[in-house]
């Protein structure tokens, strides 16, 4: 399912999960670096949304459109909400929230891929 975009999302979200996990473990608050990484992840996820919608409309793939789009939209809202929630917490738990969000992005992309390839409803 437009492999380059999916790989970009996976790389960004993995990097965000690891980086924010390290920051949490070292008991630091979220800095500019993490926020930039979150921003790049969001860009990749928006690209995934666009790619997903284009693929859905241009091909006659046997996939539930409502479910597929629900996952794409979920993917796009997770990171901004997490950044908003993390910024209010000036302790290690701020980056901890970003770790949760990055893991959720990874799970959603995996589910999206499952939906597209028709394995697992």
């Amino acid at each position, binding site marked *: 399912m437009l492999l380059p975009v999916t790989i970009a999302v996976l790389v960004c979200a993995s990097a965000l999960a690891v980086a924010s996990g390290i920051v949490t473990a070292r008991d630091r608050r979220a800095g500019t670096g993490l926020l930039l990484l979150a921003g790049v992840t969001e860009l990749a996820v928006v690209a995934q949304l666009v790619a997903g919608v284009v693929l859905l409309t241009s091909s006659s793939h046997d996939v539930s459109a409502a479910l597929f789009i629900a996952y794409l939209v979920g993917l796009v809202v997770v990171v901004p909400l997490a950044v908003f*929630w993390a910024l209010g*917490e000036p302790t290690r*738990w701020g980056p901890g*929230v970003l770790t*949760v969000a990055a893991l959720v992005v990874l799970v959603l992309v995996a589910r999206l891929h499952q939906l597209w390839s028709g394995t697992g409803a």
Partner: protein
Amino acid sequence: MPDGTPPQPIETADDGSRAGRGPGRILVAVYAVFALAATGRATLQISEYFHRAPVAYLLSALAAVIYLVATVALARGDRTSVKVATVSCTIELLGVLVVGALSYVDHEAFPDKTVWSHFGSGYGYVPLVLPVVGLLWLRQVRRHRAPVA
């Protein structure tokens, strides 16, 4: 002046939202994810194919409501919210245990999955762990508020 009444606990400014602070932030985040996931699943199930398994889908909707209530209550974190969160976490724990057990025993009532079926195995058993962690955290919050000798 000693007048025989114990000192009342003082509500400090940050005390009011302690449940959603610190590690509580993570808890609220995870609850929000499940609120979103359960709402999405229930909406789809009820709007697209309700007739297939009405009981399971209504339970999905109930789960969604409970996750939403718990998320908001934990995030607010004042005294009333802590009570509301405790009740919703308890219902959630009972729900995941009862639905989890029933889904193994009575396959016909649960032909399609809910967040709670098979003890939340479809969600990495997080639905089973989450209410336990939530209740422990709420106990911690309440203890912190109790008057200290």
